């Protein structure tokens, strides 16, 4: 017992010297680097890190310790974001090394995170380059999810397979479709984006994915008007659910028959019997957009090398298999880089998803939708 305490003290001393950058060669063998990982989201994300990925990584990398700061549903994400910006402006260490949060794309578009490159993170080359471009190479997708169409097979025999067919179905079956408000969840957001995008001139569609220019927002008007015209045929003449779960609840209790949902959430809900087995999933052609979950490295982190090594490990087939199985989601790397068995298990959705717009437009699309589409209902 005593011995153990002593070795811990030595370890702690080594850590301190290691952190202050004064590690000697002799010390380096025992020094431990502690990485602080900020993550938000639901408990499934917490479990993924704390029960699966981190213990595995720490086992094979005994000199690395990863400290998880979990923030349920990202309630504190805005203050963490502010803290990182403030630390960045003052040139100080924010206390965070790695981020797994919705704040990553926001910080990345403002160039507040470390630019990543394939020399330091070799597995980066297995990620879809379009996704990296969206975050100026500052955000690294390590998992993803796509929006798919869920339908109640007991009521709907021939589900719509294209966006136009879906719009026609909504008009033909008033009150049996809804989506969540774009500001409260990605599944509604991606539906809105898909409809608006279908009315944007071809040459501007690509620009919405990579650029950030306010002037492009004027191309949204026809699509928003189309959504507005759906209003009377939406559930309760224009009630839009709050949050992705709100949509799933309405599907589960039979209030609506068709809705856009996140593939991972719906698959997990089906597994846990929170959705009846009559609910089926289908992807439209062309597919709805997907959303990668991005990791980012904080610019002033003193442990950048360790952070790069960890991110690189996350993109290995071993780690990606765990991520895909645990989250019922998409890998961060392209499908061809995950083991064949995993590809087969998820064959129904193992396709690529459309790349969504740059996160620059997210806030404005939410607001434009609220003031044009939602405002006229009721």
């Amino acid at each position, binding site marked *: 017992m005593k011995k153990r305490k002593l070795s811990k003290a030595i370890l702690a001393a080594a850590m301190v010297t290691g952190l202050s950058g004064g590690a000697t060669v002799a010390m380096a063998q025992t020094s431990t680097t502690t990485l602080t990982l900020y993550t938000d989201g639901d408990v499934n994300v917490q479990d993924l890190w704390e029960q699966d990925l981190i213990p595995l990584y720490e086992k094979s990398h005994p000199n690395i310790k990863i400290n998880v700061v979990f923030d349920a549903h990202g309630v504190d994400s805005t203050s963490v*974001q502010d803290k990182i910006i403030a630390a960045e*402006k003052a040139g100080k260490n924010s206390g965070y090394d790695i981020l797994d949060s919705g704040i990553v794309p926001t910080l990345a578009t403002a160039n507040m995170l470390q630019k990543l490159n394939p020399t330091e993170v070799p597995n980066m080359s297995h990620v879809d380059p379009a996704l990296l471009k969206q975050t100026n190479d500052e955000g690294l997708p390590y998992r993803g999810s796509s929006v798919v169409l869920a339908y109640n097979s007991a009521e709907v025999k021939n589900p719509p397979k294209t966006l136009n067919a879906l719009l026609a179905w909504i008009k033909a079956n008033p009150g049996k479709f809804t989506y969540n408000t774009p*500001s409260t969840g990605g599944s509604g957001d991606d539906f809105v984006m898909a409809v608006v995008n279908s009315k944007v001139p071809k040459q501007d569609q690509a620009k919405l994915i990579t650029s950030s220019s306010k002037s492009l927002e004027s191309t949204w008007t026809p699509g928003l008007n189309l959504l507005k015209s759906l209003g009377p045929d939406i559930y309760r003449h224009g*009630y*839009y659910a709050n949050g992705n779960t709100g949509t799933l609840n309405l599907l589960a*209790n039979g209030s609506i028959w068709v809705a856009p949902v996140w593939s991972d959430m719906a698959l997990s809900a089906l597994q846990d019997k929170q959705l009846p087995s009559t609910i089926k999933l289908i992807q439209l052609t062309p597919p709805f957009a997907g959303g990668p979950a991005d990791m980012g490295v904080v610019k002033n982190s003193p442990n950048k090398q360790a952070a790069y090594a960890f991110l690189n490990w996350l993109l290995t087939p071993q780690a990606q298999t765990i991520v895909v199985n645990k989250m019922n989601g998409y890998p961060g790397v392209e499908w061809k880089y995950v083991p064949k068995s995993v590809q087969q298990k998820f064959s129904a959705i193992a396709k690529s998803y459309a790349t969504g717009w740059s996160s620059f437009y997210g806030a404005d699309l939410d*607001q434009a939708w609220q003031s044009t589409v939602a405002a*006229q*209902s009721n």
Partner: protein
Amino acid sequence: MVNRRWIGFLMAALPIAFLLAFVGLPTVESFFYTFGYTGGPNAVVSEMAQNQVVSHHGATLGVYTELWKMASFRADFIATIWVTIASVALLLVISWVIALYLRFSDGWLARVASSLYLIPMFIPSVIASYALVTFWNSGGFVDALAKHLGDPNFPSFGYTLFGVVIGNVWTGLPFAVLMLASGLRNVPDSYIEAARDVGARAWTVSLRILLPMNTLPIIIVATFNCIGVLGAYTVPYLMGPTAPQLLGVAMTSYFSAYNEPQQAEAMAVMVFILAAAVGTWYVIANLRLDRKSGSV
């Protein structure tokens, strides 16, 4: 003696200093932010915010005028006022009736009722709102009952402004009945008996004796609920329609989803002004009552 006074001062100073540092300063800072001051302590929040109105000299009302120009914001504002007035009025009527019943009935039913009305206090508003929405929504219990009784067009209140009113009444009920019932209990039986002896009916007793003697509890219930409903979030978020949104919900959307903290804080200032007006009315009414009773 002097020592004691100092101790008293210190004891009061600590919480006041705490409030000033953690509530006062951020409030003042946000207040200036809504008038276009983006420097100093507002530098971090204004770094990422969208559509800001920045003033380089003096203050600007730009954020406020822009908000008022938006039809959706005006609708949100009017809806908030409407829901607040309707909730408080309905709450007063219902809790007054319950309080009267508790004051004058003595059976087992009254005893059960006197503990039943406290139930909403122990049910978290998230759960209560969800239950109410399920109950009142189309396909819910009330809707199904109405259909069975032959009224297929019965309005369902889930996801409507009236649904929010129902939710607010539910959450406000325990406090309101508690206040009004204890006020009524303070009216001596002899007053009521004297009135009855000269032939006053229940209606007259209630209107001419009980009501005037309970002005203060009524004002307390009205003002406290008014202020609570103005900034409410959970009930309107879960029970309300997608649009118009009540300001509590709208502020959250503007703050995080639309990335416009300046606009959200300007709304908070407006809600604060409304709440302060209600609060002032409460203080004035209180002073007047005190003067009437001769204690000031």
